């Protein structure tokens, strides 16, 4: 088994993207190979520049949204995008865009944040994830 952590990022809300980015950072810091598969709303969140205006919070906790955003700004918590960039800086992190979502949303790799490594299909991702130790759906 490879020392690999695979994250499937389906959600596009800031709270879940934050969790995914911190997990990716922890994995990278501890020397795991981290692979992130962006699909559906998770991929939409990586549209170029989109993270700057994304204020969405999980529907179940919507009422906490404004307070959470305020706290994150007041305490200068790095954005989830910064976390992913930091993770790439300290370790081996690859971020893949789901090809099916790309077609569905008419996206090209150039429309996405430059930290997205490549486009891949689900089969390739699963094939690689099955050799890993940790796989999480967020």
């Amino acid at each position, binding site marked *: 088994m490879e020392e690999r952590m695979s994250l499937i990022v389906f959600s596009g809300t800031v709270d879940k993207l934050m969790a995914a980015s*911190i997990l990716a*950072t*922890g994995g990278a810091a501890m020397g795991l190979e981290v692979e992130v598969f962006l699909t559906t709303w998770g991929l939409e969140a990586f549209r170029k520049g989109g993270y700057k205006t994304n204020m969405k919070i999980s529907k179940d906790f919507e009422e906490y949204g404004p307070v959470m955003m305020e706290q994150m700004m007041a305490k200068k918590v790095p954005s989830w995008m910064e976390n992913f960039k*930091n993770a790439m800086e300290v370790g081996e992190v690859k971020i893949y865009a789901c090809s099916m979502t790309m077609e569905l949303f008419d996206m090209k790799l150039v429309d996405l944040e430059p930290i997205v490594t490549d486009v891949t299909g689900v089969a390739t991702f699963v094939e690689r994830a099955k050799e890993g130790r940790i796989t999480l759906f967020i």
Partner: protein
Amino acid sequence: MPDLKEITIDKEIDARGSFCPGPLMELIRGMKALPVAGVLAVLSSDPGSAKDIPAWIQKARHEFIGAFPEQGYTRFVARKTH
């Protein structure tokens, strides 16, 4: 744990007020920039650092000198071994 006064710290990074995994990331960056045998100190007020920082140092096979509690924060000291 050795006496802090007896240790020569080559570089100190103030990561107080930075959140998990911020202080650890500062430590990793600091270690990369430090010459071998250099001693790095990171100040952290994040309670996660107490376990995260020694775990990383062990994983990266550097030498953990100690965690020295101060008022409201901890000074983590490590030596780069390779």
